[in-house]
């Protein structure tokens, strides 16, 4: 017990705040708001403001240069007759549905490997985390494109084993596996969170399970999974939202066009093309708001269903 980290708080050295006079409380509040002000101003000017204007623009025909023209719900209704829009939805959904669970599985598996005490553990942790640090960068997408290109290392490596797939970059049926591999490889961020979660599981639970003769599989499903479920839930939610927003790597790998044959036409990429290539900013805004709504609904569903499988330590109260 002494070695394992405990969930309980450290000794309560901080005493509860003494009741103060209301004038002092007002001064505290003012100081608080003053310190908050820079963030608040930024939040209003850079987040809330643009969001409201984009909501307005989504009901207009706006080409960036001329004043927007009000067209009501037209943008939203034409969306569903737009084949490229439907294609972008399909591409994005398959990326989210296959990429996210695989990424989380990889993150959890490696986190469990790194959880045990070994020599050079620090090195392994940083080595596995490194790809995520440079993850969203343009350079990685370029490297990825070169690796999976015609006669690139992947093509050469596979043909060494007698598998001749050719370059993946130009093959519409191989670009999605490539994009999913790219995201799975960048599992560092959820891995670190998993690792922190694993450290919180009391070792004596495993000891007790071993005494009762439980194998590793049983330990995983009866101890690790339920104890880790809040962390799994958090990672699942964050990575799902994150996956919906994929842009930079798709943009680089497809030369900003979503090709070949629309196979990398991700939602945000199509949104960007609509806004900045076709000058249809109202249409792009409508797409953006639809994405907000859909991600919101998915988050809500996650929270509702989470009750049945996520266990918090404070639940017994």
């Amino acid at each position, binding site marked *: 017990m002494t070695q394992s980290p405990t969930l309980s708080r450290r000794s309560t050295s901080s005493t509860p705040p003494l009741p103060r006079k209301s004038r002092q409380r007002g001064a505290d509040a003012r100081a608080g708001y003053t310190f908050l002000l820079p963030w608040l101003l930024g939040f209003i000017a850079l987040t809330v403001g643009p969001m409201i204007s984009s909501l307005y623009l989504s009901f207009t025909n706006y080409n960036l240069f*001329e004043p927007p023209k009000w067209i009501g719900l037209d943008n939203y209704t034409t969306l569903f007759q737009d084949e490229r829009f439907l294609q972008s939805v399909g591409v994005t959904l398959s990326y989210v549905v296959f990429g996210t669970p695989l990424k989380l599985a990889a993150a959890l598996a490696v986190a469990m490997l790194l959880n045990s005490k070994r020599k050079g553990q620090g090195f392994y942790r940083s080595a596995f985390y490194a790809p995520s640090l440079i993850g969203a960068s343009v350079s990685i997408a370029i490297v990825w494109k070169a690796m999976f290109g*015609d006669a690139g290392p992947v093509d050469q490596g596979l043909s060494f084993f007698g598998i001749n797939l050719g*370059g993946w970059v*130009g093959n519409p049926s191989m670009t999605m596996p490539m994009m999913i591999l790219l995201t799975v490889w960048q599992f560092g961020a959820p891995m670190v969170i998993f690792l922190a979660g694993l450290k919180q599981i009391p070792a004596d639970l495993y000891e007790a399970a071993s005494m009762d003769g439980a194998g590793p599989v049983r330990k995983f499903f009866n101890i690790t999974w339920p104890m880790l479920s809040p962390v799994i839930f958090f990672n699942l939610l964050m990575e799902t939202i994150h996956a919906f927003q994929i842009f930079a790597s798709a943009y680089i790998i497809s030369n900003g066009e979503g090709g*070949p*044959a629309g196979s990398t036409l991700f939602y945000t990429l199509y949104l960007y093309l609509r806004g*900045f290539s*076709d000058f249809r900013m109202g249409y792009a805004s409508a797409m953006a708001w639809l994405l907000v709504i859909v991600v919101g609904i998915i988050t809500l569903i996650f929270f509702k269903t989470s009750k049945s499988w996520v266990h918090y330590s404070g639940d017994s109260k």
Partner: protein
Amino acid sequence: MISRRNFLTTVALGTASAAALAACGQSAPAQTGSAQNPVTINYTWWGNDDRATRTRKAIELFESKNPDIKVNGNFTDFAGYWQKRATEAAGGGLPDVMQWDLSYLRDYGQRNQLLDLSTVKIDTSGFDKSLLPSGQIKGKTYGIPTSTNAFAVYYDPAKLKTLGVSEPDGSWTYDEYKSWLKEVGAKGNGTFFGSTDFTGIWWQFNIWLRQKNIEAFTEDGKLGFSKDDLKTWWNMASDLRGTPALVSEERTTQLAPKSPFGSNVTVAENTWDNFMAGYLADSGAKELKIVPVPSDDPDNLGLFLKPSMLMVASAKTKFKDASARFIDFMINDPEVGQIFKTSRGVPASKKQRDGTTFEGTDKIVVDYEKSIEKYLKDAPEPPIVGFGTLEASFKRISSDLNFGKLTVDSAADAWFKEAEDLIKQNA
């Protein structure tokens, strides 16, 4: 651990440098500079490494002759170029001077993003009178052509020799052209392909329409051709797609942004004659030749001289005078002609053309434009607003066609749907 003292020093330094930066910003709006305190204008262009090297040389020359102006140059490839400009235009921060394309002149000019160049001092006395209107919309001059180009079929004579295929002489029908591509593909045996799908190029389609005396766009901004015309056009390559006569779309995608011809994968390619320098640099070939495009009517090749690119300035530039001097220099200076030769096209200004010596491959381009002189018709009708989008979707949809994702009929339907939607949007 940062000590309190260190922290305060850092903050103080940061504040001081921010103030210093702000002070620099305040001195910038001055209209003119001096050798001691030059103004900086931003210039952007699209192109490959070859053009970048030449442009940098031209900029250095300009700076040495105009010590009161510094030029900050920046470039991307064609596709990304227009997305960048749209972002900048939306933010009100277009570069001072830009290389421009006819396809996008209306989008920006008509929407007051470009400077009326007739209000500044630029010498256009050396220009052909019939060429200047292509940069003008409703009486305002938004762009000045740097040079002219014409459409052509490129081929690599050395590769043809190794394959044992004879060189074309440029008087050919579409059937003859196609059987030539088939022969190249068959003898190329997987190492060399005939060409990229010529039916996926808007301008080649436009030329074919003109060969049949059809205009692509009507004066009131509508389409001048029918869906059947487009189907006939795309069907033209139906028997070539998926054969070695045309390089596969997969390869083309992988090779981007270089073209399959520039990457030594195909033996021929249809495009503008000013691509010569770029192709030579990309492919490392010693010699490339150009001949006229095929036509089923030997008296009507549908060819025309197009401003290959234009120089424009941002309507919001703070340095009108410096920008005008840079544009004037780029279009008129004989030494600039000597740097670019025909890589931007044949210089449009007589001053520059006369000051440039054309040898070797550059002479091929100049000679080609001379050889087709008797066939040349007026430059095409000014493209409609949003033409850049249509051109891009033409390329995208014909690429889907090559991937086998669409039939010719559904491809034509898809393009017409997009075109009609776009025309309605901009009406």
